[in-house]
């Protein structure tokens, strides 16, 4: 089995799977169970300032959407930061870290945007022996109404300011957790970088209402007839998170800034994808909340098998490998031509490709009387919709038209030479090829 030991900001953990700051890491009891199950690290559920703890609602805190067989696809929550006393958490963190010196223990913090508040809490956190801190600038519900969480994360200047305070009063790594509830994730990432953050972690949850109770005409989860937006997470948010991770990984201003990726990691493959996209490790919450802590075992075996197959001996070997292949649309090769191909041996004749193409796309699939489906090369724009809607994996594929052959749709010979929009004659600002 491949050694999955991963070092992130100098913090070693036996694998790159950390539990994100969330209900699963709220207490010593849970965290010990997590470590026994095999998790490489935890980000302890967010601590608030000394004094009376926050209170949570006493009605439902979670809402969800489901796929087939009630498979949970997306979860939303309106839970606040820890509602247990600060000292209790600090004592528990100290004990757990002492008992599990090989696991990463990161403490998430959210206190008001005042220097004194951070100056007060940071030495106490440092005394626990935890490996680092994560600044919760992400929670979109509840705490944001009090000027914390995403209310900070949405203002780059605040991010930089608070990060600087933390670097001033805390000696170990500082991770800034970003909210996705902004228009361009690069700005808060740049601010964290400017404030000398050691890393960013993302994404926190996305503003959401999962459903509406049509009998009571109220959003779910409903508390006494009312509801509020919560933070959305789980498998459904993974594509959004992947893009945001990629944006930061390839931004010249933040390139090289370590990233801890969060957002719908459910299996080893999700983790490998985030890491290939530049993340040094991943944080998981919904998968654990859905299935329990034992899900990490599949993540460990799956990542290990895949690394063995690929010949990677360390997670460092593949971290960031996909980043150079993320580009802007304008640089995509317009001379790369593919056509859909339907494997008649694999086709089960459901006709979904036909319905999708005929009704909603390019009328590029023919259907015979006896339900044989074939691609019309002179109409196929290679959009990939047929591949995506086909229920049989691998039945429809996109095959490249080699250079020298004619693209029957355009009637032109495929040149095989790279050419993009920046030089295309239809582009008013094209620069003529020299």
């Amino acid at each position, binding site marked *: 089995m491949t050694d999955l030991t991963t070092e992130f900001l100098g913090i070693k953990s036996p694998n790159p799977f950390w539990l994100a700051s969330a209900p699963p890491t709220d207490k010593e009891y849970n965290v010990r169970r997590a470590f026994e199950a095999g998790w490489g690290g935890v980000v302890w559920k967010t601590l608030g300032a000394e004094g009376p703890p926050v209170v949570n609602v006493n009605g439902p805190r979670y809402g969800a959407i489901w796929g*087939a*067989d*009630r498979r949970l696809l997306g979860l939303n929550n309106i839970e606040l930061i820890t509602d247990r006393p600060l000292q209790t958490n600090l004592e528990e963190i100290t004990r757990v870290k002492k008992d599990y010196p090989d696991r990463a223990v990161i403490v998430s913090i959210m206190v008001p945007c005042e220097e004194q508040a951070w100056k007060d809490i940071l030495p106490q956190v440092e005394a626990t022996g935890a490996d680092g801190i994560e600044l919760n600038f992400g929670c979109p519900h509840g705490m944001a109404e009090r000027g914390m969480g995403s209310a900070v994360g949405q203002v780059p200047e605040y991010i930089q300011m608070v990060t600087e305070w933390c670097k001033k009063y805390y000696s170990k790594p500082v991770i800034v957790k970003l909210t996705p509830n902004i228009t361009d994730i690069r700005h808060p990432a740049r601010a964290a970088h400017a404030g000398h953050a050691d890393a960013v972690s993302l994404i926190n949850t996305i503003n959401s209402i999962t459903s509406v109770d049509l009998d009571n005409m109220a959003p779910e989860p409903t508390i006494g007839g009312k509801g509020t937006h919560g933070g959305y997470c789980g498998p459904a948010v993974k594509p959004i998170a992947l893009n945001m991770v990629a944006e930061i990984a390839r931004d010249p201003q933040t390139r090289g800034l370590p990233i801890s990726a969060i957002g719908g990691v459910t299996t080893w493959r999700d983790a490998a994808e985030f890491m290939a996209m530049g993340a040094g490790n991943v944080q998981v919450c919904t998968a654990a909340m859905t299935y329990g802590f034992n899900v990490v075992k599949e993540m460990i075996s799956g990542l290990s098998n895949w690394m063995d197959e690929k010949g990677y001996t360390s997670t460092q070997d593949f971290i960031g490998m996909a980043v150079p292949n993320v580009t802007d649309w304008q640089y995509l090769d317009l001379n790369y031509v593919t056509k859909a191909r339907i494997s008649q041996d694999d086709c*089960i*004749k*459901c*006709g*979904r490709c*036909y*319905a999708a193409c005929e009704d909603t796309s390019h009328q590029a699939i023919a*259907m015979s009387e006896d*339900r044989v489906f074939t691609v019309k090369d002179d109409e196929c724009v290679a959009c990939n919709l047929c591949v995506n809607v086909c*229920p*049989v994996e691998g039945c429809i594929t996109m095959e490249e038209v080699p250079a020298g052959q004619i693209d029957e749709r355009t009637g032109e010979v495929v040149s095989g030479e790279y050419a993009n929009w920046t030089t295309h004659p239809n582009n008013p600002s094209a620069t003529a090829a020299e």
Partner: protein
Amino acid sequence: MASSHQASGIQAARLDAVGIAENFSDLHPAYDAHEAAVAADRCYFCYDAPCMTACPTSIDIPQFIREIQAGHPESAARTILEQNILGGMCARVCPTETLCEEACVREAAEGKPVEIGRLQRYATDTLMEKGTHPFTRAASTGKKVAVVGAGPAGLSAAHRLAMLGHDVVVYDAKSKPGGLNEFGIAAYKSTNDFAQREVDWLLKIGGITMEYGKKLGADLSLDGLTSSCDAVFLSIGLAGVNALRAPGEDKNGVRDAVEFIAELRQADDLTALPVGRNVVVIGGGMTAVDAAVQSKLLGAENVTIAYRRSRDEMGASRFEQDLAASKGVKLMFNVMPKAVHGNGAAAEIELEYTEVTDGKVSGTGETVRLAADQVFKAIGQTLEGQPDALALEGRKIKVDANGRTSVAGVWAGGDCASGGEDLTVTAVAEGRDAAMDIHSSLMG
């Protein structure tokens, strides 16, 4: 005390009430809501779906499954019932394995089709349990149509005609409606008196008068009906039964399978229904399987189906054959009855092995004897008691694509009419389509 399997002769109470109840419980238990949702999720919502093409009543199957999946089985039921008013019974008795489910692309893909029949039952049961009827009658046309035979074809025609605003009188020779839904079909496919409940529900459309104990040729005449009504629909089924034409056919213990099944379906207490220790069923269709399986379920020790051709030619589907085998029925192929032996009552049946040459069955001369205190004949039913005025095609009433017979103003459908397989679902389609043609003819 329940008598054992081994008690010889034709005996009641081979099993106690608990054993009987267990044996005759629902063959395919109803889905609960979650099972239905999971099953519905497997549907691919095919374009121009093959299942729909395979359904004799052309139910929009992808549509109704999507309605179940989206949480409104009542709409799903309406989608079904618009095409097939006996969708509840068809969900139970259709040989889906040779119709919609055989055509399901998931059958091709993984050998496990979407369970369309059970989903249809879930939808129709949900609606019927509410006790409401989803259709209403059009304004009265003042036309009167007679329907002879309250089986699937007749009920389907009557409902459609009533819905279109005609007044319908349904005559049936028996004392209750349903035809083969009530008197044929294995009991474990129509539990809790479903056939009668379905008829009661169907009649909620209004405009249908039921007249029982009225037999065509005895209490009714075609001439009388054509002169008193604007149109006549005949759905008289197949009242005759083919004979074995083997010596000993008249011995005690030899009887028609359809009669046995009808008696079983009407029995209040199945422990009181006698069955042989050694039962042999002659035939290869659904009736043969229904008789054999139910004999076994009543507690017969040995039950054999003896069919004169090969397995592939058997009328009963592979599913039905496997069902029979799973209940302990022995299937014998390429054997035909040569004689029934016994002193007054049947004791043994002598079967001769057969070979099939150019489609013709002939005996090889080699015989085998099986103990048989009860022999059921399930070798097909025939048209009987049809009015002489009607032209026949083969041994059925000749009809065109719209169900019109050779006599003006008279339509026919179901098992008595030419065309289509002898299935409940086919009868429903024929009744519906004839009703539509009657309507255009009356209103045209």
